[in-house]
């Protein structure tokens, strides 16, 4: 590639040598950066796997089904059951709340709001995506948690029959997975909204007009033209948000009151997540404890990878599909 530059064809000798050398230096420099990135990535993956394997070898409990996390005890026992449950459940709650609302806001910005409101509001949502998670955490524990008290006991009262919304003991601050889910929903809302909004904006005007000209109301137009076109975009935006929610550390660590119990009573304080567990435990961890945390980190990493990979596959499909439609 490099030698194909037209400079070679007519360049005088000294200049040609100069440009050759410049080209090769620059090429190697930029390739080196790429290789370095690969090396870092490989190092992370390799290192995590190696340390995890060390830890797993010394684990006296079942890594997948054990509730406790006591890798530094005389008889090291640790497992990710509680963490997996907590991570998945809180992320799931966040998605259930955030995705419909985000789609609603995206529609609000792209199709409903008067333009004077839509523009600044879209901008505001973008800015909110940048609020650091520690601030969300602080707000969550000092503002949201006190305000969730009423709602929690209300849900216990009216929805307690669902089992998952029944509280074992009332009056405790709701530092539970449900509140964490709500906080995560608020945190991922701006990201999902931003991506979804862009997709909705790309819906060709002619498809919207086709629907309107057939006698569709605004909602029917959205259902026939906008949502089908935007569906892959909504899914991949949600995956992006899900990835964020799964890996969220500090906001969860601030709000959740952790323990090593696994309960379906989502309004009871307790449980834990991968990221939160790592952040809170690493400090007092002994070498084996650290390796055990690495193992849980690896699991989190793999889960995030799968989610991101799924999102990417969906986006790629959409590209093919819109190419065929054009």
């Amino acid at each position, binding site marked *: 590639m490099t030698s194909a530059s037209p400079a070679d064809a007519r360049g005088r000798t000294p200049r040609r040598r100069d440009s050759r050398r410049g080209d090769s230096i620059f090429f190697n420099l930029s390739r080196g950066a790429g290789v370095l990135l690969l090396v870092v990535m490989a190092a992370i993956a390799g290192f995590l796997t190696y340390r995890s394997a060390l830890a797993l070898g010394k684990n006296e409990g079942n890594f997948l089904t054990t509730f406790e996390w006591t890798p530094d005890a005389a008889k090291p026992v640790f497992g990710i059951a509680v963490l997996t449950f907590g991570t998945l459940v809180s992320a799931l709650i966040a998605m259930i709340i955030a995705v419909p609302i985000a789609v609603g806001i995206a529609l609000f910005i792209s199709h409903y709001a008067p333009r004077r409101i839509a523009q600044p509001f879209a901008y505001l949502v*973008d800015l909110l995506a940048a609020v650091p998670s520690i601030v969300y955490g*602080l707000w969550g524990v000092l503002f949201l948690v006190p305000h969730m008290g009423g709602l929690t006991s209300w849900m216990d009262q009216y929805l307690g029959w669902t089992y998952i919304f029944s509280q074992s003991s009332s009056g405790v601050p709701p530092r539970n997975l449900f509140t964490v889910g709500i906080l995560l929903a608020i945190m991922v809302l701006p990201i999902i909204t931003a991506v979804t909004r862009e997709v909705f904006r790309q819906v060709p005007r002619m498809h919207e007009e086709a629907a309107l000209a057939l006698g569709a109301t605004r909602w029917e137009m959205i259902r026939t033209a906008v949502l089908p076109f935007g569906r892959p975009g909504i899914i991949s935006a949600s995956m992006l948000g899900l990835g964020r929610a799964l890996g969220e*550390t500090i906001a969860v660590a601030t709000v959740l009151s952790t323990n090593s119990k696994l309960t379906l009573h989502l309004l009871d304080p307790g449980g834990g997540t991968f990221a939160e567990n790592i952040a809170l435990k690493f400090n007092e961890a002994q070498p084996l404890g650290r390796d055990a945390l690495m193992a849980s980190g690896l699991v989190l990493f793999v889960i*995030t990878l799968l989610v991101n990979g799924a999102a990417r596959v969906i986006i790629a499909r959409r590209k093919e599909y819109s190419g065929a439609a054009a």
Partner: protein
Amino acid sequence: MTAIDTVAAAPQLSRRLTAARLPRWAPAAITVGSIAVGCAVGAVAGLESHLQWGLISALVFLVASYTASATVEGRRQAKDRFATSLVWVAFICAVVPLVSLTFYTVQQGLGAISPEFLSHSMKGVVGTLSPDGGIYHAIIGTIEQVLLATLIAAPIGLLTAVYLVEYGRGRLAKAVTFFVDVMTGIPSVVAGLFILSLWNILLGFEYSGFSGSLALAILMMPVVVRSTEEMLKLVPNELREASYALGVPRWKTILRIVLPTAIGGITTGVMLAVARITGETAPVMMLVFGADFINSDPFNGPQQSLPLYIWQQYSQVNNEFGYSRAWGAALVLIAFVMGLNLIARGIARWRSPKGGR
């Protein structure tokens, strides 16, 4: 003629053009009415949390607008109105927590911020017993760590993006692209853990601002690569060809033509990445350790950083004094991140290349 004449009009659709409509003031009236009902029910039932008041109002609003429309205008219109109401409710659902977050942080933070707060460290202050002390050391730490991380990540990220766009063909480029994607998904704790066990434990370096920077750089690199790649792709190929046609070598073309054309977008991308890592807490918490005093040397000994400071004030001090300092630091941190964002977007608008925006 063709089959149109032979087949009789199958489905008899309504041919009326006029339809009963709700008066224009109806949505506003329903809104006001349902808020009133929500508040009334909340007050009478003695629900202490305003969240419930709002939820009741929202439910009443949705039901009322559907029923009103369904009785007057028919089912299709009612569905349309219901969708509109839902979208508005979604909007409110988003606005309430986000406004509350902003408002609460500003309100609490302004109470804590003072010239002393900004210019003093926590040295010699017993955090649990006194409202004194400040975030000076944390500001210094954050700036140094973020700067170091940027110095590591930005050039590597930039060069990688140049490689992928300008040279990248073949298996190596494919692998790099793939792993950049993978890297974007690394949870920040995992990056922190990695540096902790490799740099601090295996290689034996002590806690320092720099080891925090290393973890932050890992988080920042893929973001920089992605955004720079997008920007370089926007540079039209004609520009490159025009430059080659003048006999300019490839590397000079890239340095003198391609990069300057895309510099606005690249800067924006880097600044957004900086804003993102500035707020990262977990890796800093594991690697920087958190000092109470001013340590302006990022390579030796524990430092402090703003996110970590907030966390420590909340979790370790954990009383009114600590909360107050945490809010003060949170406001400064938000202002810093928002400032970066605004500047970045300003640059993007000011120097957007063709096709951008």
